[in-house]
């Protein structure tokens, strides 16, 4: 499993904030993705209606998930493929290893897949003497660096070009040490040449899936580099690893959701490659795998059905929420401490690893709502983060000092007369103290505020006190 550092979110965040190269890299997220999505959405007058439509398709699929999963599995098997049901990450790893062993596989190539990150597949395969090779350029870089993705569609967004050059020189020792790697295109060319060999060596190709289509038993991937196609069509065996909520009823549904996916993610009308796979190679097919397996992972998702977190299962992993998140922009993806960062991670991670491990994530949000406003599937992310806070509150998981402070505040907030008597005195005093400068540089119990900013002083006298003085007894609602 991927190591969980979510409990150390605050320390992770501090480290990230002090990391100058990371901060420079995050600047690109802030500028690039947002502008491109805005242009793409603007260019399509029906974009918001497409979002409604996409939401409705997934809602329907989730409401009948059992039915569609069974229909999908039947179609896969009718096409000559094999379906494996994995309840847990461990089940999925074991199933995949068994397939590798049955093929005597030494090398597997991989298309980009967050699910294989979720189940920690690479480390597991390595432990069992199977070498996984990531073929998406970003994932390849991350693999060379021994890291995990910091973004769900741009895994190496935190890495800069010079770091990639150093990694390539360190690992590609068979190449001329004096070669020029100054340009991104030369780096890309080198990765392509190295990876091309791997495709031919691979015994098995493993991909994820953006969609599973119930009516045809088809798995769909979208990529920009074509690496996914080579991964799944060159080796003799293709293994698809996908979580159960990827299911949609029909091919028409796929084409509907595709219209919002790339636009929301990268601002492209469509990704460069959209590839449909149905079973192993048929007799008339010019190419394709001899053997086709699908591993369907639950890993906690079915327990989200019927709860306040079901809407999260609509997510199509476009990354728009994190691209637009001020907290993600500040700290990057690794600070979140597990596989899924940003707003979608703040909702999904507690569902998958437990809120006691990841309680910071749904709390580290300003509730600015920008994520929900760009989500192509209209997932109410802030609302669901709040639901996690409710679960934490009801289980007494939040810090005692915060609970005590909140309880004290609520006691007075529910008693207006008492509240106003108290605030009249407190604000009067504070107003006098702050009168000279108009603000405080430090304030007991407000260190979180005054560490970084001044605290504006009250003008003096609460509004309620001043209004009462002017309007006397004629007021309504006085207690």
């Amino acid at each position, binding site marked *: 499993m991927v190591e969980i550092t979510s409990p150390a979110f605050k320390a992770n965040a501090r480290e990230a904030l002090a990391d100058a190269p990371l901060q420079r890299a995050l600047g690109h997220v802030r500028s690039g993705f947002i502008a491109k999505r805005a242009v793409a959405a603007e260019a399509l007058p029906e974009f918001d209606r497409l979002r409604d439509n996409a939401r409705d398709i997934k809602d329907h699929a989730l409401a009948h998930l059992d039915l569609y999963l069974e229909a999908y599995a039947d179609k896969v098997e009718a096409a000559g493929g094999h379906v494996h049901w994995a309840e847990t990450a461990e089940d999925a790893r074991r199933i995949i290893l068994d397939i590798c062993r049955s093929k005597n596989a030494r090398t597997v190539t991989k298309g980009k897949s967050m699910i294989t990150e979720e189940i920690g597949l690479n480390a597991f395969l390595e432990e069992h003497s199977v070498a996984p090779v990531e073929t998406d350029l970003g994932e390849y870089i991350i693999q060379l660096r021994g890291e995990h993705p910091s973004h769900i569609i741009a895994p190496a967004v935190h890495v800069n070009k010079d770091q990639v050059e150093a990694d390539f020189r360190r690992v590609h020792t068979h190449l001329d040490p004096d070669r020029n790697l100054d340009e991104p295109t030369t780096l890309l060319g080198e990765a392509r040449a190295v990876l091309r060999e791997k495709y031919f060596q691979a015994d098995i190709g493993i991909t994820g899936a953006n969609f599973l289509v119930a009516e045809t038993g088809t798995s769909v991937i979208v990529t920009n580099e074509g690496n996914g196609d080579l991964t799944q069509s060159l080796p003799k065996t293709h293994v698809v690893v996908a979580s159960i909520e990827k299911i949609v009823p029909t091919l028409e549904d796929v084409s509907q959701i595709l219209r919002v996916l790339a636009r929301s993610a990268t601002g492209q009308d469509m990704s460069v490659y959209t590839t449909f796979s149905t079973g192993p190679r048929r007799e008339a097919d010019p190419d394709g795998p001899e053997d086709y397996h699908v591993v369907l992972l639950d890993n906690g998702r079915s327990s989200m059905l019927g709860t306040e977190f079901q809407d999260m299962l609509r997510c199509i992993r476009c990354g728009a929420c994190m691209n637009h998140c001020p907290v993600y922009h500040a700290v990057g993806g690794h600070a979140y401490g597990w596989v899924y960062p940003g707003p979608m991670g703040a909702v999904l991670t507690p569902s998958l690893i437990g809120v006691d491990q990841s309680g910071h994530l749904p709390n580290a949000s300003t509730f600015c709502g920008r994520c929900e406003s760009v989500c192509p599937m209209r997932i109410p992310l802030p609302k669901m983060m709040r639901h996690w806070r409710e679960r934490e*509150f009801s289980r007494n998981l939040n810090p005692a000092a915060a609970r005590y402070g909140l309880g004290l505040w609520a006691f007075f907030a*529910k008693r207006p007369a008492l509240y106003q008597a108290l605030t009249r005195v407190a604000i009067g005093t504070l107003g006098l103290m702050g009168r000279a400068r108009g603000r405080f540089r430090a304030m007991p119990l407000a260190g979180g505020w005054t560490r970084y*900013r001044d605290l504006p002083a009250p003008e003096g006298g609460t*509004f309620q006190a001043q209004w009462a003085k002017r309007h006397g007894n004629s007021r309504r609602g006085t207690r």
Partner: protein
Amino acid sequence: MTANAQHDAQQSPNGRSEAGKAPRVGLFVTCLVDLFRPSVGFAAVKLMEDAGCRVDVPAAQTCCGQPAFNSGDRKDARAIAEGVIRSFEDYDYVVAPSGSCAGMLKKHYAELFDDDDEARARAEAFSAKVFELVSFLADVLGITEVNAQHEGTVTYHDSCSGLRELGIRQQPRRLLRSVEGLELKEMKDSDVCCGFGGTFCVKYPDISNKIVEEKTRTIREAGASLLLAGDLGCLMNMAGKLKREGSAIEVRHVAEVLAGMTDQPAIGEKRRG
């Protein structure tokens, strides 16, 4: 102040306001305005009275309940909401000089009563009457200009709840353009969060600081001498940061400028003279 007759023709949500009669407005002051900047409350009263409203301030109000609601404490949030609804449900309109508090009253109260159909219906009827101040002036009363003067350049920050929960974007800008002498200079990314986020700013001060640093950078780049917004929480956060950075840019609630009530020192500034 120029108001068209829209509110005369428009039935209030509970049907109480008859044609031609001044709408009765309950001002939800908000806790931050009550405690830190009463002049915003008085500016709100002036703006609405100038537009022909009768404005009351029920004494039985404290806070909208957001700190409890957003901390996962639904029970206290619901108790506070019950009190607010009781105090305000007889008015034609309930108006708050804050997008965040108005958003809470308008968009979130009903869900606190999910298990009680009658209470939920009552909350929904209440919520239908709630408006943020500038949206109330522009969208409900149909006001297109104000009778105010302000010599100088201003820039406007779109607070998140007002913008994304209540759709407030053009309304304050339109009214600001009618202020004599005022020049609006837009900042980049005016719709990006300032990092306040209620308790977020003290729970995660390092991250909040990073976000507000970005915000004050774009504020300074706008080259205006006055920063305006519609939410005191955001304003105190941005003012506090600008002052800590030694900036001379002043910060005020948009209502103060629209009402022509800028005699008070700006937020975080000392009294003159």
